[in-house]
């Protein structure tokens, strides 16, 4: 069978996320519990987590999480890293042997910072430099796959049910201020570890439930801006779009949501002039970045968490709040299991973003 990257694979899913806006760090136990509730929304072919604030001791270094199929490719790849980065620390990512999780690749973690000379020669900003290095590894080193590349954050994913994946990676031993989780129900993949979600680039990590119908329009557009959609998954292209709009074009998160889940023209026509003109501009300027078809996404990044539904709200997504905590999940039960008492619970409308900014420094 063809795996991710060789064929487009749609999937149904479960997502869950939680964030403490005060920046307080908490352990990964709750996110495992939450995603476990939605066991039936996955089929054992993929699960994963993104965790923010977990590497405070290395917070100024890019944490590269990498799958290797063989030691040989690991050596080649490390040579590449050596040429481009100063590697501060490298290690296998700690895992727990479990009968539910099999066929694991070599899973390594590198804390790196770009070599100053290389960075200067490239005439790129640091993050772009890192992103390009990630693309090179993922497209040119067969059997190597960088699946996490942000600072002070990490993605942990595998083939299996998400709760098993969480135990496998010993997620309960990490502490962070935000976690997202994904349980996958792909419809035609043999299951490849790299194809599990979240999908991440730099500090952007996206979990997504849905199947976007605009995929190839989005893909072909974003590829023009230097991105390579190696996986052909929705989550990948959505991550790149968010990265492109946020990091490269400087749009704010509300503006990004007005691009990818743009209000309908008929809605825009009824708005006050200033707002209307802005939205009209965004729709024309970033027309290829409009995403249609069902999706509910959680976008984690260094500044916080954004949740967004497609503009018709074709996928379920519920938000709950309690104190400094915000919980977002495909089902309310997945929130109640860890926070039975909530100050408020609601289902955001289609295209209406829920944005939580974290107060750093706490």
């Amino acid at each position, binding site marked *: 069978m063809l795996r991710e990257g060789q064929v487009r694979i749609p999937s149904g899913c479960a997502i869950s996320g939680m964030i403490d806006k005060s920046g307080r760090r908490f352990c990964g136990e709750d996110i495992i519990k939450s995603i476990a509730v939605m066991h039936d929304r996955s089929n054992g072919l993929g699960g994963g987590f993104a965790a923010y604030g977990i590497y405070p001791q290395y917070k100024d270094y890019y944490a590269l999480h990498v799958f290797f199929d063989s030691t040989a490719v690991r050596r080649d790849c490390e040579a590449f890293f050596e040429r481009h980065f100063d590697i501060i620390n490298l290690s296998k990512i700690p895992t727990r042997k479990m009968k539910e999780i099999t066929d694991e690749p070599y899973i390594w973690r590198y804390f790196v910072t770009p070599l100053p000379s290389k960075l200067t020669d490239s005439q790129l900003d640091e993050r772009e430099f890192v992103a390009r290095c990630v693309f090179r590894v993922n497209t040119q080193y067969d059997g190597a796959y960088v699946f996490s590349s942000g600072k002070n954050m990490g993605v942990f994913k595998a083939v299996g049910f998400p709760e098993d994946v969480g135990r496998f990676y010993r997620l309960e031993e990490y502490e962070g201020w935000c976690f997202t989780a994904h349980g996958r129900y792909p419809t035609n993949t043999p299951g490849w570890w790299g194809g599990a979600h979240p999908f991440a680039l730099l500090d952007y990590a996206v979990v997504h439930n849905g199947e976007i119908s605009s995929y190839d329009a989005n893909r072909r557009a974003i590829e023009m801006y230097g991105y390579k959609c190696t996986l052909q998954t929705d989550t990948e292209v959505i991550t790149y779009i968010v990265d492109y709009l946020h990091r490269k*074009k400087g*749009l704010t998160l509300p503006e990004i949501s007005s691009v990818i889940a743009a209000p309908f023209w008929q809605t825009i026509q009824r708005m006050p002039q200033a707002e209307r003109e802005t939205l009209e501009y965004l729709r024309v*300027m970033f027309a290829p970045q409009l995403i249609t*078809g069902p999706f509910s996404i959680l976008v984690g990044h260094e500044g916080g968490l954004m949740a967004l539904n497609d503009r018709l709200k074709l996928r379920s997504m519920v938000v709950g709040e309690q104190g400094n905590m915000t919980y977002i999940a495909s089902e309310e039960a997945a929130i109640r299991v860890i926070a039975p008492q909530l100050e408020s619970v609601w289902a955001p409308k289609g295209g209406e973003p829920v944005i939580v900014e974290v107060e750093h420094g706490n």
Partner: protein
Amino acid sequence: MGINWIYPEHEVVRNRDRCINCRVCERQCANEVHEYLSEHDKMVCDDAKCVNCHRCVSLCPTRALKIIPSGNTYRPNSNWTNRTINELYRQADTGGVLLSSMGCPQRYPVYFEKILLNASQVTNPSIDPLREPMESKVSLGARPRDIQRDENGRMINNLPPQISLSMPVMFSAMSYGSISYNAHESLARAAQELGILYNTGEGGLHEDFYEYGANTIVQVASGRFGVHSAYLNSGAAIEIKMGQGAKPGIGGHLPGTKIVGDISRTRMIPEGSDAISPAPHHDIYSIEDLRQLVYSLKTVTGHKKPVIVKIAAVHNVTAIASGIARSGADIIAIDGFRGGSGATPTRIRDNVGIPIELALASVDQRLRDEGIRDNVSIIVGGSIRSSADVVKAVALGADCVYIGTSALMALGCHLCRSCHAGKCNWGIATQEPQLTRRLNPDIGHRRLVNLMNAWRHEIKEMMGGMGINSIESLKGNRSMLRGIGLNEKELEILGIRHAGE
């Protein structure tokens, strides 16, 4: 009479049981095929004059008429077909270049017919356009690389001039002169009602139609007929016509007999003089010259109108398009080799150029590969025959399509391909008052509006089926397409997979 080399192609068949001798056919045929013999109280016809335009068939109140192939044939020969032989005889007779009209009728592959569309099942929902908003609005023009913000962080509208359309279809260039005043009025009024644009073609713009300026593309062709500052400023966009799918490499030719009255005035040439557009623009012998014309036109119009450059789809269309995308033009229009014409040399129509589907696919991909797809929008024409063709063209990467032949057919054209004779029985490609009045713009524009509304409904149905509710999510969305009966090379150029993959 000498030798009668060519037997009539068609035969007019009259059902005597149904004919009531009302003589409508006789009155309506400008080619004088039908005649009433009063002494015999009977209608007769001369098949040799028939061009098969179906005017008589359509108006016969008792359906007493039909037109069939005459069936006369030379000794069957797969190499020397009847058509080839007749054309040879005709040239031996006249010594002239064979003239034709409308698009290429030959049996080349129609790729639109070898592409199938996708629809949603189970994993994502199709969308019902009757219940949910379904957006067909399109904006054509260049997109800048970056946004700009003012000191308060508000985004500044830095978009170059755009064309806003209610749907991704426009009426392509057909000049006043090649088609009638009433045909132009029909197109202009329909464009206005539909919120799309029509195109003046190269014959200038009749003063009566300046009021439709917001829905008008004014064309500048190699003959520069009717081009002046007011004209350039009257429309919503300017199109530089470099080429035409039906006759790549040659210019237009409107015979002096059609240069009468208002047409002469509008074109700014003397009555009765042939309007001959040079094959090239004589101020454009290379791409950098084009850039100068683009900027001249922008200067004249205060940089308020997008500039379209229209080219015929020829072999190196991708490279040409790439050059245009860097020329300052806002929009590229590509005309495929099946595109229509009011008059074109038969050999050129039938042998020069490439299909629009392939040209579109390769141009769209090439501009993306070069990272300059945002510099321009792409309009394609050259036999867009249905809403399905529109959807396929957009999914291949077009921003919009041009329709010419389809629009004329809504006005009555029956594809008899004798526009060049000037005796269009449907009042479209003629300037004879007795014939032009046959096209009442009240009816004509309504039929165009109907056609476009029908297509828009169908486009929305197809989009909804794919789970797409905005046309921009269809644009370039080639995963929604699958080829059928195409070889690897064709699939590669089209950038699509084969059905079943």
